[in-house]
């Protein structure tokens, strides 16, 4: 899976492996649910 980009002010770059691991640890997924109520 391609790592998502992050933006810090005007700089946009691909996440590092460490940042991506931290993001996945939060429960982040590439696609969201249809809706929380569905």
């Amino acid at each position, binding site marked *: 899976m391609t790592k998502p*980009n992050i933006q810090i002010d005007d700089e946009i770059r691909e996440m590092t492996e460490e940042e991506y691991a931290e*993001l996945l640890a939060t429960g982040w997924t590439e*696609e969201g649910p249809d809706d929380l*109520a569905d």
Partner: protein
Amino acid sequence: MAIKTFTTGEVLTASDTNTYLANSGLVYIKQQTVGSAVSSVTVSSAFSSTYDNYKIIYSGGTASSLNTLGMTIGGSSTGYYSIVHYSTFSSPTVLISEGNNNAASWSYVGYGSANYTSVSIDLINPFAALYTTYGAGAWPAVTVAGTSSGIHQVATSYTSFAITSVSGTISGGTIYVYGYRKA
């Protein structure tokens, strides 16, 4: 001087005009254009001793799917608590609640879809070495809508924040930061 009462016949000077036009309650601080397909956007140098409390709005963007939008303060990754109460448009009398309990971010400060992004919150005391809270979090999703509030229980001073996409990514639009004038 925050306010002045002019009297009949008094000359309205350019200096007074410029001063008091600028003395609004809500003062623009900065804005950040959001790039394409990013999972988070950090806005640096947003908070300072000039203001205690802030208004943050993110509008004009889109999300890769139906995404709840979150926030972190100053890169902190612990101590976030929040509650969102919402109902579906089809059953508005049925209340549903979700929340964060000592999470790595606030997860319910706004919402986005392929057709919009919406964040509008008041942020209280992010620069002070106190707990930071947010309120008046409008949370309008596509089939549901609600409001949220939360507290970050780390008593540290912060100067930056990040809007995050709890899933997927966000693209475009602008994050606006305003300060509530103190005097």
